[in-house]
């Protein structure tokens, strides 16, 4: 393969760098402390048996080396700032820089969670204002910002359902979960003490309503539904679904991971959802940071409000804000303090930058982008479900598989074309899934480059399958041995390994 066919990327010289421990040498320093203005204390005397001997293999390096170390490492990463992430279900959108700036304002960044309320009104106001925005966006009645991520929000939401049903006399035994659901859904149900019952989807990629009706009964606490679901399809019978659950005293939980398809266009609270979480690190643009932090606020209907984690923010008559800890029915805390406040600041900054018109336009562009890609790739990749797509589209590798080229291979080959791969083999209902979510942040030019790349790879799969199966070819490391890594796990550096290190 010649780099010439590749429009988006070119290979360039890139710095190598070992592990920081391999740079360490006794006496190098990257720190200096201010002189001590109180009497020194001999910690060996003070701590006695509890005193530490030494810090083993912790590194000793200079500041210059640290800057180079982490700068070099960073150049090995792909990032939104470098290009598109067509990662279905992950909503990798633009992370505005102003969000980072305001989150670092000393008054916010240096606020101690226990500092008195009278000197915390600014932080509380940020949380209150964001809460109000999210409530109107979701059409819900009450909210908590405490959960640290989506899965954490799921747990919080299911705990609310559990507590509510408990208060009605019976928490019930099961949670229904569609076969297309994200892994965190069943895992969450289990943590909350529920058995998971699988719910089949129909030929249109939606919940099979009759099957739901048949499976729903007084043992079922509720349904965890993602809408649009993980096929990017809006559950058109959503209200029937809610009715079926509600008739039997169950509740509808919505996984809000795909809210980027709905904000400003429709509200879960209006179509029957009882409780849901939002991923601020998806829909509300807080940066993913190589895996986190996130934030997973949970919004719910009135009936569930009494059970929200404590504390909850309340506005007093005089307009000041306070934390209410006196919540006898609360499910308790899901995290210390008040959640990932720094993400709340960023999410609010995103909301203010957009306003009502910007949020609607954002949703429309996200859906427009997904449908554009669907249209352009339809012929080249198999589309398992014909139902209309919202913010993402799921193809399969069934055409390419005939040449032994799997979704994972196509994904790796995309890297050579200058893209981060799409989401591979999820959702599980699609064999060899190719799940693409462009988000609103991509220009026509970037979308066309992706389309060209996908088409080129489809051709390569025909003409030269080995080329694709051995991708990537342009990265500083070639395909890595994940099986080997799992067979004999090496999870930390050890001095012995040093020589091997270089």
């Amino acid at each position, binding site marked *: 393969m010649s780099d010439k066919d590749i429009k988006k990327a070119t290979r360039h010289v890139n710095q190598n760098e070992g592990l920081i421990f391999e740079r360490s040498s006794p006496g190098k320093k990257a720190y200096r402390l201010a002189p001590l203005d109180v009497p020194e204390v001999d910690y060996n005397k003070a701590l006695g048996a509890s005193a530490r001997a030494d810090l083993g293999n912790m590194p000793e390096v200079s500041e210059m080396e640290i800057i180079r170390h982490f700068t070099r490492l960073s150049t090995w990463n792909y990032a939104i700032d470098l290009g598109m992430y067509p990662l279905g279900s992950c909503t990798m959108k633009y992370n505005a820089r102003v969000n980072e700036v305001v989150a670092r304002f000393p008054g916010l960044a240096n606020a101690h969670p226990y500092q008195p309320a009278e000197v915390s009104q600014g932080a509380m106001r940020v949380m209150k204002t964001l809460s109000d925005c999210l409530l109107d966006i979701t059409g819900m009645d009450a909210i908590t910002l405490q959960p640290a991520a989506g899965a954490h929000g799921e747990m919080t939401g299911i705990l609310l359902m559990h507590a509510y049903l408990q208060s009605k006399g019976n928490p019930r035994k099961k949670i229904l979960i569609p076969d297309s659901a994200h892994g965190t859904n069943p895992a969450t149900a289990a943590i909350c003490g529920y058995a998971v019952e699988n719910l089949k989807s129909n030929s249109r990629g939606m919940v099979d309503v009759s099957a739901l009706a048949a499976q729903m009964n007084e043992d079922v606490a509720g349904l965890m539904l993602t809408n649009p679901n993980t096929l990017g399809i809006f559950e058109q019978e959503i209200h029937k679904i809610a009715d079926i659950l509600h008739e039997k005293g169950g509740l509808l939980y919505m996984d809000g991971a795909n809210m980027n398809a709905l904000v400003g266009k429709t509200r879960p609270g209006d179509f029957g959802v009882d409780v849901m979480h939002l991923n601020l690190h998806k829909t509300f643009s807080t940066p993913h940071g*190589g895996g986190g932090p996130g934030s997973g606020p949970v919004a719910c209907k009135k009936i569930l409000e009494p059970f929200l984690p404590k504390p909850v923010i309340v506005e007093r008559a005089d307009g000041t804000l306070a934390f209410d800890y006196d919540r006898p029915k609360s499910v308790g805390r899901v995290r210390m303090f008040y959640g990932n406040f720094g993400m709340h600041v960023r999410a609010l900054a995103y*909301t203010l930058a957009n306003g009502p018109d910007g949020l609607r336009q954002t949703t429309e562009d996200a859906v427009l982008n997904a449908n554009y890609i669907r249209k352009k790739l339809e012929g080249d990749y198999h589309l398992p479900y014909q139902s209309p797509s919202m913010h993402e589209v799921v193809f399969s590798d069934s055409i390419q598989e005939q040449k032994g080229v799997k979704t994972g291979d196509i994904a790796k080959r995309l890297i050579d074309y200058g893209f981060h791969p799409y989401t591979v083999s999820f959702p599980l209902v699609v064999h060899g899934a190719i799940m693409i979510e462009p988000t609103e942040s991509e220009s026509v030019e970037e979308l066309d480059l992706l389309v060209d790349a996908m088409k080129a790879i489809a051709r390569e799969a025909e003409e030269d399958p080995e080329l694709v199966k051995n991708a990537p070819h342009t990265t500083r490391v070639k395909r*890595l041995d994940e099986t080997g890594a799992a067979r004999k796990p090496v999870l930390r550096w050890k001095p012995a390994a040093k020589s091997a290190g270089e």
Partner: protein
Amino acid sequence: MRYLPKSPADRAQMMREIGCKSIDDLFAPIPAEYRLNRDLKVPRQMAESEIIDYFHSRADANAAGYALFLGAGAYHHYRPVVIDAMVSRGEFLTSYTPYQAEIAQGTLQAIFEFQTMVCELTGMEVANASMYDGSTGAAEAMLMAVRLTGRKVAVVARSVHPEYREVMHTYTQHQGLPITECGYLENGRVDMADLEKKITSDTACVLIQSPNFFGTIEDVATVADLVHKKGALLVVSIAEALSLGIVKPPVEADIVSMETQSFGVPLGYGGPYAGVMATKEKFVRQIPGRLVGETKDKDGKRGFVLTLSTREQHIRREKATSNICTNQALIATMATIYLTIYGREGLKELAAQNLAKATYASGEFAKKGKVLFAGAPRFNEFVVQTKDDPQAINQRLLEKKMIGGFPLRWHYPELGNASLWCCTELNSKEQIDAAVKQVGQ
């Protein structure tokens, strides 16, 4: 909208190619009765300069430039500027979870270094890539102990951070995992006699914190002996990780759950922080969360990947060791940079400075009130019992732009007018002396 890379012409052309007349055609799947036909009730679109002004006003409504004597699970330490300079690089800040290892070696190697440093600090053999925070990490450590022992009861020291204990209760309430609490002694340490009584043959684990909520350093080894004798596991929770610069690591523990906020993470009104779980190699397959492992590429070159994912929800679903997916990677990266800056000698020196400040301060406070829990070593926190109500003292301090200690009455009524004070390298002698003045006789 200025973030959106499309011109009106772009949109029109795209719709033409898709073959839809109006953008609403694409939202047809949403039943008409559920479509929102009004503007959202959120503030109007703002200019960047207005956003800056908005958050300046919010920030100004918070304490800024106050002398801070609060710890209690969130610690104020100096943050070297290199940390933000590095994590602000788009390649770290805006990169996704490193599932695609060939274009994520930067994050993967940094987290591998994080795991290694956590092992070095805690004396454990393996550490994961991070948990949400110290409190959820501690709760998940309990669940892990249950999976490891098959036993169904946990004992928690009352000297563990009260909010940590609340989170443990929340996580375990539907696991049929009763939690019994164990008291503390005059010297602030775990009451061994009480502990001995509380541990039964059903006890999966005992969870203690060291330094504990009172700032007292526990005798981990002795606790471990007892716990192990009873066939249970010992989980040690660490809230003030900087203590490990001079405090013996809890090598006798089976699981260590640590909050890393002290390592260069802003107080940030409580988050984001990063927890981490460390344990013995033999327990690794029950650890929750992501793990980065070393491997080789086709050409035999060293590289790093996410590994042992069969423990995780995206593979194991309801049988996973946890439901955690998104973690606190960027915060773990901050901690890694911080630990690299201070390193082997700096952490020791810095921790020693914290000890010196707290020792001086407690000495001064002792002249105005009673410093509780003498007789056992402390790190940078101490409990002072006063004649006046701590709330009243804190009000006086606030007027002087000082934020006083954390009143304990609510969580520990038995301690009366006591509050928990913290002094770090950032508390000057001047500040301390000024604060002591306000305590009154």
